[in-house]
């Protein structure tokens, strides 16, 4: 008997495949020549297995979300992995039942309609598995619906806001599995061809299912739900489902996000699953800001809305990037857009004067901010003196900024002018070593300056080396310290252990909670990326960060960034020291450290 209810499904499916092929081919062709080569070469390597593993782990199982929040993880996994298994095992079921591959494309979706009689044991086993998977998914759908209305249960403070097409896709997705349940229950009511789930629900339905209108109607509804979902998919957040897989393969092929907004960035834009995990990581909520966070920002871009305020209102601290289960390069995406937005603005540095050129083996480049943290500057001078290192303090006078603040504002071309001038000074000095005490400087010198044959070291690493070489004495004092990972040093350059080692040689370090430490460390709030953040917003973030540190009641708060240091000092609650200062004070003035100012303790109401 000819049926027509499969056509909505088929139309939806064809539309979906056609759109996806069209979109992905367009994106692929727009990739740079080198990226295409990389991608082609990738297929012959072992990296393909990693990509497949990532696709299963992240795309299906959503392992990263699971680790963050098991209930949220289950929800995503049940829909993704559950549906995947439903399709795969459903097709397997048909292959076994038909004894071959000779069946129409849509057969497996509507199997219980087309082959209502399942008498064999194998068929019963399959029916049980399929019922189990359906239940597995339905629990996830129930959770999804609950989350939309009662997000606190999921431990999430914020969920994403929806646009109209998103709603079409969302509601049809929610409808698919209950409708499948309804349709299969109707079949089960008539033919008892279900298993523990559908037979039960079929029994409840009873005689209603005998009506052809209801029976046929249930399968039509199911088909239409699938159709609407497939048609809405390329225009909705669910575009992330296929795009994420495409992105995983490109990423594993070694393709990097560029400074221009091109195809790879565009693919990442559509890989965002709007899961909202980046929201809880963002400290801007402390300042009452709720439209700058990554998920909303990407949405602005997708919808081609004016995104200038949210674009420049982000600290580029990287906390969201660490949490993103899709591993999007959120910082680089923002940077690429900042570059685009600030292209018309010009800067010119032909006016700079050169300091007196010196030749030296080692250069110390303090950086603009360090000139305001004199303690760090003096401590570095003392350390160099102590170990007899002859150093040229390159930017003591007539300092030229390293260029990173300009880059964070999107001004890469302007920064290149400063980079050129500083590079010339460094090369002409004949130095072999360059030591930095500011993480912003360190990052740009390592990543954007071209200084072959020069050892570029961060001062904490340099101090660690000195300790290991026994050139600096160890002096573990009986004081407690917390180490704050600066954003640019920790997440930015992956340096976590050396500063901790240095601190532990001189004090007792209190570890922070795992969820607020190392790559998840808090941002001080004053990041140079937050171009249009208000002073109040920054202070709110700093205040909350300090409140967190205060709970541990340390004697000192040690950091490795002059910006963090100046920012935390303004809060007044805890004594703040740079790592270099801690070292020098521990060696030269241990008593001063031991007699730190009496910390204010507030008395409860009596």
């Amino acid at each position: 008997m000819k049926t027509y209810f499969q056509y909505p499904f088929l139309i939806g499916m064809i539309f979906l495949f056609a759109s996806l092929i069209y979109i992905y081919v367009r994106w692929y062709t727009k990739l740079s020549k080198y990226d295409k080569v990389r991608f082609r070469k990738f297929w012959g390597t072992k990296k393909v297995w990693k990509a497949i593993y990532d696709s299963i782990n992240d795309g299906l199982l959503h392992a990263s979300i699971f680790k963050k929040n098991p209930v949220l993880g289950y929800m995503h996994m049940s829909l993704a992995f559950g549906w995947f298994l439903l399709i795969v095992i459903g097709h397997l079921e048909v292959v076994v039942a038909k004894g071959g591959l000779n069946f129409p494309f849509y057969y497996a979706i509507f199997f219980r309609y087309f082959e209502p009689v399942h008498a064999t044991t194998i068929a019963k086993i399959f029916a049980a598995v399929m019922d189990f998977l359906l239940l597995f998914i339905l629990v996830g759908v129930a959770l999804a619906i609950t989350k939309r209305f009662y997000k606190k249960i999921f431990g999430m403070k914020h969920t994403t806001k929806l646009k109209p097409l998103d709603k079409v896709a969302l509601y049809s997705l929610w409808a698919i599995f209950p409708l499948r349940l309804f349709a299969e229950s109707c079949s089960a009511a008539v033919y008892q061809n279900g298993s523990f789930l559908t037979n039960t629900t079929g029994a409840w339905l009873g005689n209603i299912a005998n009506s052809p209108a209801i029976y046929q109607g249930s399968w039509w509804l199911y088909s239409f739900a699938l159709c609407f979902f497939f048609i809405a998919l390329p225009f909705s957040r669910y575009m992330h489902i296929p795009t994420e897989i495409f992105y995983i393969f490109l990423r594993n092929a070694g393709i990097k996000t560029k400074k221009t907004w091109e195809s790879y960035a565009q693919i990442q834009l559509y890989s965002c699953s709007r899961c909202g995990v980046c929201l809880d990581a963002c400290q801007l909520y402390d300042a009452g800001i709720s439209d700058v966070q990554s998920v909303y920002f990407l949405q602005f871009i997708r919808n081609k809305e004016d995104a200038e305020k949210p674009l420049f209102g982000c600290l580029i601290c990287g906390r969201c990037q660490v949490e993103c289960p899709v591993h999007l390069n959120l910082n680089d995406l923002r940077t690429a857009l900042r570059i685009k937005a600030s292209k018309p603005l010009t800067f010119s540095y032909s006016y700079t004067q050169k300091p007196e050129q010196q030749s030296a083996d080692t250069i110390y480049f303090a950086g603009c901010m360090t000139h305001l943290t004199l303690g760090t500057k003096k401590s570095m001078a003392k350390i160099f003196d102590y170990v007899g290192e002859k150093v040229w303090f390159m930017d003591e006078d007539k300092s030229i900024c390293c260029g990173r603040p300009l880059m964070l504002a999107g001004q890469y071309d302007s920064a290149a002018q400063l980079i050129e001038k500083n590079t010339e000074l460094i090369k002409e000095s004949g130095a072999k070593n360059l030591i930095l005490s500011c993480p912003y400087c360190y990052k740009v010198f390592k990543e954007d300056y071209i200084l072959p044959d020069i050892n570029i070291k961060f001062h904490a690493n340099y101090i660690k080396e000195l300790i290991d070489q026994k050139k600096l004495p160890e002096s573990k004092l009986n004081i407690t310290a917390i180490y704050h990972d600066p954003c640019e040093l920790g997440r930015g350059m992956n340096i976590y252990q050396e500063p901790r080692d240095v601190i532990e040689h001189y004090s007792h370090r209190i570890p922070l909670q795992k969820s607020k430490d190392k790559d998840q460390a808090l941002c001080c709030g004053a990041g140079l990326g937050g171009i249009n953040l208000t002073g109040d917003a920054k202070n709110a973030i700093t205040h909350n960060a300090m409140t967190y540190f205060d709970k541990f009641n340390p004697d000192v708060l040690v950091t490795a960034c002059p910006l963090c240091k100046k920012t935390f000092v303004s809060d007044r609650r805890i004594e703040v020291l740079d790592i270099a200062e801690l070292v020098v004070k521990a060696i030269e003035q241990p008593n001063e450290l031991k007699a730190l100012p009496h910390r204010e303790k507030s008395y409860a109401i009596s």
Partner: protein
Amino acid sequence: MGDLDFIKVKHLHINYDILDLDLLNKVLQEETSFQWCISCGCCTASCSAGNHTTFNVRRISLLLRRGEIESLEKELEKCMLCGKCTLVCPRDIQLRNVVMSIKKNILKYKMSSL
């Protein structure tokens, strides 16, 4: 060249009634903290560019307030955006954003008058 000629002043004296304060108002809208300046000079004293040339961010802000906007664009090319001024300001003024805002609005101003 006279010492004070790096910014050409338009009039011999300021007549507040005839000033064009459009640019100033746009900047104030984008960065309200600009309003709080007490002209203490801390920003200019710590300026990285100021070490090399006559760039003076306090003076630029004040000139903007008095409608003297002719040479602002060229002067503002000198800023390295290093952020020292913002870090020392006792009134918590977000100077880096003030500089960016003036530059963007001058650009819009020029575009609209073309």
